[in-house]
């Protein structure tokens, strides 16, 4: 038996009652979400066909959203679902349908060495980052507030109003720009 179930069951038996069991469930679900994120990411960067890659990306984003939920910010989690899964992934899938006929897809590595090289590079970067994370002690400061949705909204429109406006301008420009670039020469 793996420790997951064992701990949960033990907690249940040793009189912690349902509380321990619930925590076990939460931890277990977290593991699942972790796995989903990693698997999704792997599909996204390894899949033969781009549509599979996009589905992997969507899966990964769902996992990331769940992880945000565990990080005490359901609002960002929902936004993650809404924007990344509902908009970005679908846009990418659309672009694949429009611009990448399946027959002409060659998704193998660019050169004989590029695959291993890329793997080594990525591995080194990852190891470096992990090492960094392990070796650093982060100073934990006391919390000033709970960070609810209302606070986010208030701060967005007060302290960060300038950035907020800039981002909206960027979005507007992006919409107009993409329309201009991608406009088909079809007119009836």
């Amino acid at each position: 038996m793996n420790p997951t179930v064992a701990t949960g069951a033990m907690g249940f038996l040793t009189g912690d009652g349902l509380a321990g069991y619930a925590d076990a469930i939460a931890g277990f679900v977290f593991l699942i979400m972790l796995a989903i994120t990693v698997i999704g990411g792997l599909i996204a960067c390894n899949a033969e066909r781009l549509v599979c890659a996009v589905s992997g990306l969507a899966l990964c984003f769902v996992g990331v959203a769940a992880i945000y939920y565990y990080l005490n910010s359901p609002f960002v989690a929902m936004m993650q679902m809404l924007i990344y899964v509902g908009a970005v992934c679908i846009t990418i899938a659309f672009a694949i349908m429009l611009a990448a006929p399946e027959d002409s897809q060659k998704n193998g590595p660019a050169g004989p060495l590029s695959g291993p090289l890329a793997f080594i590079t990525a591995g080194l970067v990852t190891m470096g980052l992990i090492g960094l994370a392990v070796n650093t002690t982060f100073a934990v400061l006391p919390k000033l507030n709970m960070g609810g949705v209302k606070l986010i909204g208030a701060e967005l429109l007060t302290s960060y109003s300038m950035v907020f406006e800039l981002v909206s301008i960027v979005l507007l420009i992006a919409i107009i720009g993409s329309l201009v670039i991608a406009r088909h020469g079809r007119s009836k």
Partner: protein
Amino acid sequence: MSILSLHNNLNTYLFLAAILFGMGIYGLVTRRTLVGMLIASELILAASSINFMAFNRFTAPDPTVGQIFTLFIMAIAAAEAAIGLSITIAVYRNYKTVDTEDLVDLKG
């Protein structure tokens, strides 16, 4: 530390972010099509967002800042995806390919 309380540990999130970042790098290098590279870059963005959120949860004094940053990253990512994909489509229409190897014309 039980495996079931991993979600209360900052390092878990940092490891995950690192792994996603590595995947993104790997994908960015190996993918040969513009769309594939875009997908990989989305992974990198997700990794950075996770870092922001994790530090926000565990260390930052004001837990709204990280969330706001993540929201901005989302907005920028959406804009980037829209622009990137429209460029992809335009490139495809003119060159009939989205393979970066074949797009020699774009080199200076």
